[in-house]
């Protein structure tokens, strides 16, 4: 792949001062040396690196391969080879030592800053970038799981036009020639369909293309975009504004169907700010959520109002009515309307008013613009604007909704398009039922599709180009607040591929320079003068370009326009309503081929490897169906088949249908998993529509694979939930403190460290980032649906979900559960071979290489957190799949028990590092993967021997208790009871 080699880019390491010295970087893919893709079986790029001789040559792991590809092999294998550098890089990387690079990942338009851990040139882990305003150090499941996509051996490779394969150079030549044919009519028959992306570079390229082809048109499409937010702001304020919530100021929150803690461009930051104010006391915030399906945010709510999606607007209007009538907020008077939950609406309104200026109304992206406008009006009337909510010029303002796609399809079907470039994510699959994009594409002579994988759209397109993974290419991106990040590659493309930047650049004949040059020159122009090279290095090192955030500006809503829109919105109709939601894990289906996410239990239902038609138990009863029943769903003229699953707390007469499943052409992971609900959507009603008909099919039941089948605590003190006002430490006195024992407790005070963990259930939203982070950090295998059905999932960290109260309006607790590192661990004394014992610092160690697999430890573990390699889950890894392995963690073989180790590899790294330097490990110097990922700071890890450490403080909290304390296991992981802050008027 000589042509793909970026010239001489360099990668300043995160957190290190950068130098102006030229440090050159090429790739390390000899690790991957796949005969199929490499020109010569070994060291392909050694042979074809640029002649300046400064590029870094192959570095095959010096000690790495053995550990990276570790298996527990007892025999004496043949002598291995050690492959050193030919010429070391100027600043050689220490072999087998992690370095972190800052980059950014864009999802649905906006970027989240990440730090990527790289071993010997292999990215192995994604962390949040604490310097990035949308991450603050937290990271979401999608950013984490992106890594797995990078190494997917079934990614698209190379470039195809029709049946013929194109090399990189000839592809660029042909694209260039194709572009030239559009020159004559100014590109009138040239169209682009892009995904949402606020990237300045893409914007610039679009501008350049537009200059060359003034009549060419750009469309944007996201199956689950944020159009309504932008539209709502435009409606309310008359201009394109981004809404920036400031939850650190908010004390009373009303979410109108907004799953802001999980979905949304700023979810990580909002989760952190929200959780920061869930401490008991007068400052404890209160969250009301009006929604149909239980969302992560709904599960965190103090009060949930179960409403059809179409009723949410009415609820908001009723709140407005109370505010207008009782509290004298006259401006809201034109907005008022009725709701069936009047008592609740009144109470919410009273509460919002009491905290005016410190309250906040949020609207969900599935709700129409009118609801967003209503929220703006409410916030303005309550005096929240400028305090708990800010408005700033839109970072990205293009229509990305299904309307755009419908218009494009219509033009295509009418034969108005000769060339269509598609970089949007799989539009043929995500298109609503009434947009026949597949048929329309057939009418376009040249359809150029850039995608990471072959998917439903690929066969409909005449050109299929393999897209480079974000970790393989250069680019830029903007966070929700406008902060720019440079996207830098961590590895040379594993497969022949190119980036969106290069595709667009080829239409202005600029692709030859490569993404790096295009990007750098673009920023050089923008920055102008100064010490650009130095700035550039600093941007890369820090992961953000300073002073690029948008500045908030005052904005006042036009109440009359809002009122008009609100009144024009259709009223809620009786009968069954279909409600479409982007799936928590797969979103619109773009992560369907990601096995980590497929196997991750849904945060609420705990279902893996499936979606379902979710409905309330009462509705299910009415329809005569139960969990697993197959049904036919009809809406408008369209119908699909699906299986139902009941969810306590789901609104009645609504069927929630998550997008992203039922992929027909995804790959071995995602194809045929779940049910495709997109055919029921229409461009006009993409998110909810009345008139759904459900007919049970009465056939054999669908086998769902939930990781948790029982959601009641059976009256046991497991995940504790108290009303903040009713809680006192005496209520949990029996769940902590010393237990009577005949064993003299081991004295851990001789060691400088005593590791422990604290998990604050009040902060935990159950978003599941930690579970994916753990999977990535600890080389945890994916086992597949069959094995999950057999209850053999491997996640070391699971998030237990308990429902209490009535099935109609349950209260929920999410409880991250992993090895508790009991000081008197029941697992240890039953192991016949001493494969699980205690360390001098109190860790419950699991020694894989000693384990013979009696599984007795698991039987005796009251928390059932041990995982067993029932089958060889690692046997048939491709070379690239092996590259995702963390070389610091042994890859477990078949027949071995495993479990959470408190990320002991990180402990040992930190210990060795500090001891070589002759100092002690500082609190916060490192933490476990789960704690690091947690957007809500719910998990804290550290040294209990240090009374000042964060974890010690959690352990001393009056909310602290031990799970199954009465067993006397003395766990090192303490939980803090979950507190709710209900409104006394509603209880």
């Amino acid at each position, binding site marked *: 792949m000589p042509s793909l080699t970026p010239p001489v880019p360099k990668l300043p390491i995160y957190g290190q001062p950068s130098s102006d010295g030229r440090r050159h970087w090429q790739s390390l893919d000899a690790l991957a040396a796949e005969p199929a893709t490499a020109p010569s079986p070994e060291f392909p790029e050694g042979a074809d690196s640029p002649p300046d001789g400064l590029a870094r040559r192959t570095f095959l792991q010096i000690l790495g391969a053995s550990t990276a590809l570790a298996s527990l092999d007892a025999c004496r294998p043949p002598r291995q080879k050690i492959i050193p550098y030919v010429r070391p890089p100027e600043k050689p990387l220490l072999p087998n030592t992690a370095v972190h690079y800052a980059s950014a990942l864009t999802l649905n338009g906006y970027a989240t800053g990440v730090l990527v851990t790289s071993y010997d040139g292999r990215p192995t882990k994604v962390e949040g970038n604490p310097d990035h305003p949308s991450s603050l150090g937290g990271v979401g499941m999608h950013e984490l799981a992106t890594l797995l996509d990078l190494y997917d051996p079934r990614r698209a490779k190379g470039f195809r036009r029709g049946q013929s394969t194109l090399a990189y150079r000839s592809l660029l030549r042909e694209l260039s020639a194709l572009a030239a044919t559009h020159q004559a009519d100014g590109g009138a028959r040239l169209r682009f369909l892009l995904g949402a992306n606020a990237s300045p570079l893409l914007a610039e390229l679009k501008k350049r293309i537009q200059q060359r082809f003034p009549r060419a048109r750009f469309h944007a499409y996201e199956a689950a975009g944020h159009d309504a937010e932008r539209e709502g702001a435009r409606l309310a304020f008359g201009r394109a504004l981004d809404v920036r919530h400031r939850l650190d100021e908010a004390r009373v929150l009303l979410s109108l169907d907004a799953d802001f803690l999980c979905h949304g461009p700023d979810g990580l930051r909002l989760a952190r700010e929200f959780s920061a104010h869930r401490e008991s006391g007068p400052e404890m915030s209160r969250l009301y959520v009006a929604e149909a399906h239980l969302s992560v945010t709904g599960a965190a709510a103090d009060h949930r109002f179960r409403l059809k999606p179409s009723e949410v607007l009415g609820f908001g209007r009723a709140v407005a009515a109370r505010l207008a009538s009782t509290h004298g907020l006259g401006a809201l008077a034109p907005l008022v309307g009725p709701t069936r939950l009047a008592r609740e609406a009144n109470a919410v309104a009273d509460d919002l008013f009491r905290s005016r200026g410190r309250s906040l109304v949020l609207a969900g992206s599935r709700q129409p613009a009118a609801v967003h406008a209503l929220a703006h009006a409410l916030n303005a009337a309550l005096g929240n604007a400028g305090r708990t909510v800010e408005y700033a010029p839109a970072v990205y303002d293009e229509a990305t909704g299904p309307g755009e796609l419908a218009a494009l399809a219509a033009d295509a079907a009418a034969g108005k398009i000769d060339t269509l470039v598609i970089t949007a994510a799989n539009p043929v699959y995500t298109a609503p039922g009434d947009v026949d994009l597949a048929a329309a594409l057939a009418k376009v002579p040249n359809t150029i599709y850039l995608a990471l994988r072959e998917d439903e759209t690929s066969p409909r397109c005449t050109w299929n180009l393999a897209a480079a993974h974000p970790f393989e290419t250069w680019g830029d991106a903007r966070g929700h607040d406008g902060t720019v990040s440079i996207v830098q590659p961590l590895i040379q493309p594993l497969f022949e591929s190119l980036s969106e930047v290069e595709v667009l650049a080829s239409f202005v004949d600029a692709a030859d320079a490569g993404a790096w040059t295009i990007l750098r020159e673009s920023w050089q122009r923008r920055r102008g003068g100064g010490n650009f090279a130095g700035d550039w290095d600093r941007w890369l090192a820090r992961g953000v370009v300073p002073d690029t955030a948008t500045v908030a500006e005052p904005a006042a809503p036009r109440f009359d326009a809002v009122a008009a829109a609100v009144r024009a919105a259709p009223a809620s109709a009786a009968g069954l309503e279909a409600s479409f939601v982007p799936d928590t894990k797969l979103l619109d289906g773009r992560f369907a081929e990601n096995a980590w996410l497929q196997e991750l239990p849904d945060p609420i239902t705990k279902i893996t490897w499936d979606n379902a038609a979710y409905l309330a138990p009462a509705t299910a009863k009415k329809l005569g169906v139960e969990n697993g029943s197959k049904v036919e769903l009809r809406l408008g003229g369209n119908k699909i088949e699906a299986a139902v699953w009941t969810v306590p707390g789901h609104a009645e007469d609504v069927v929630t249908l998550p997008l992203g499943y039922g992929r027909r052409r995804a790959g071995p992971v995602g194809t045929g998993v779940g049910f495709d609900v997109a055919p029921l959507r229409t461009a006009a009603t993409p998110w909810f529509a009345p008139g759904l008909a459900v007919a049970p099919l009465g056939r054999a039941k669908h086998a769902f694979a939930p990781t948790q089948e029982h959601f009641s605590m059976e009256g046991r003190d497991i995940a504790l939930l108290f009303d903040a006002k009713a809680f006192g430490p005496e209520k949990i006195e029996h769940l902590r403190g010393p237990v009577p024992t005949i*064993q*003299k*407790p*081991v004295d851990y005070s001789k060691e400088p460290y005593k590791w422990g963990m604290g998990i604050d259930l009040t902060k935990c939203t159950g978003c599941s980032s930690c579970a994916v982070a753990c999977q990535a950090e600890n080389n945890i295998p994916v086992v597949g649906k069959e094995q999950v059905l057999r209850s053999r999932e491997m996640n070391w960290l699971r998030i237990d979900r308990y429902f209490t109260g009535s099935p109609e309006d349950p209260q929920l607790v999410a409880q991250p559960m992993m090895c508790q590192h*009991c*000081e*008197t*661990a*029941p*697992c*240890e*004394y039953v*192991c016949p071979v*001493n494969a699980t*014992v*205690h*360390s*001098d610092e109190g860790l419950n160690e699991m020694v894989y290489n000693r384990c013979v697999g009696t599984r007795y430890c698991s039987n005796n573990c009251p928390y059932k957190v041990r995982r067993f390699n029932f089958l060889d889950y690692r046997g048939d890894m491709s070379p690239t799949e092996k590259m995702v392995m963390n070389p610091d963690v042994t890859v477990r073989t078949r027949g071995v028990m495993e479990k959470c180790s408190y990320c002991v590899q990180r402990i040992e790294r930190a210990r060795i590092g500090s001891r070589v330097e002759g100092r002690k490990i500082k609190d916060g110097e490192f933490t476990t993967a789960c704690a690091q990922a947690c957007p809500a700071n719910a998990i804290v890890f550290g040294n209990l021997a240090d009374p000042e450490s964060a974890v010690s403080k959690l352990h001393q909290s009056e909310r602290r208790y031990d799970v199954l304390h009465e067993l006397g296991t*003395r766990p090192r992981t303490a939980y803090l009871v979950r507190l709710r802050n209900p409104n006394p008027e509603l209880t």
Partner: protein
Amino acid sequence: MATYVLAEFKDEAALCAAARRMRELGQKQLDAYSPVPVHGIDEALGLPKSKVPLIALIGGLSGAVGGYVMQWWMNGVDYPLNVANRGAHAPPANIPITFESAILLASIAIVLAVILLSGLPRLHHPVFDVEGFRTASLDGLWLSAEVPAAEGEGVVRELQKLGATQVERVAEEQR
């Protein structure tokens, strides 16, 4: 070279009486053979008490001591580990194996003792050269005397006199 004189008797009383008589006559190398143990034959032949119980005791004691010491040394001394906060040397947990190893060693000692003390394994023995001796394991009662070749004839006569139903002489073969 020794000669074995074998005599079959038709009942136990006769066998015991013959044995006693032969011993009175100064025969030392006597033995009796029967499909089941014969009452009183031990005294008749003047056999000492068996050493098997002592050997069993030694085996059992060394099993118990060895078993316990093994556990104490391996878990408590050589590689003490913190296993679930239990002491590295945990006496109550060591009881079962101490007991089992005592039984095991005692049993093995007993079996080895009974085999070796009985002069087994010995597939061939001069007495097997007598075809009729095959009844000894089925329903016959035999008495044997190991005598110098020269005395053989006298012993044969003596045994016939004691009521043996048949008497055979067999010389120990050169090995």
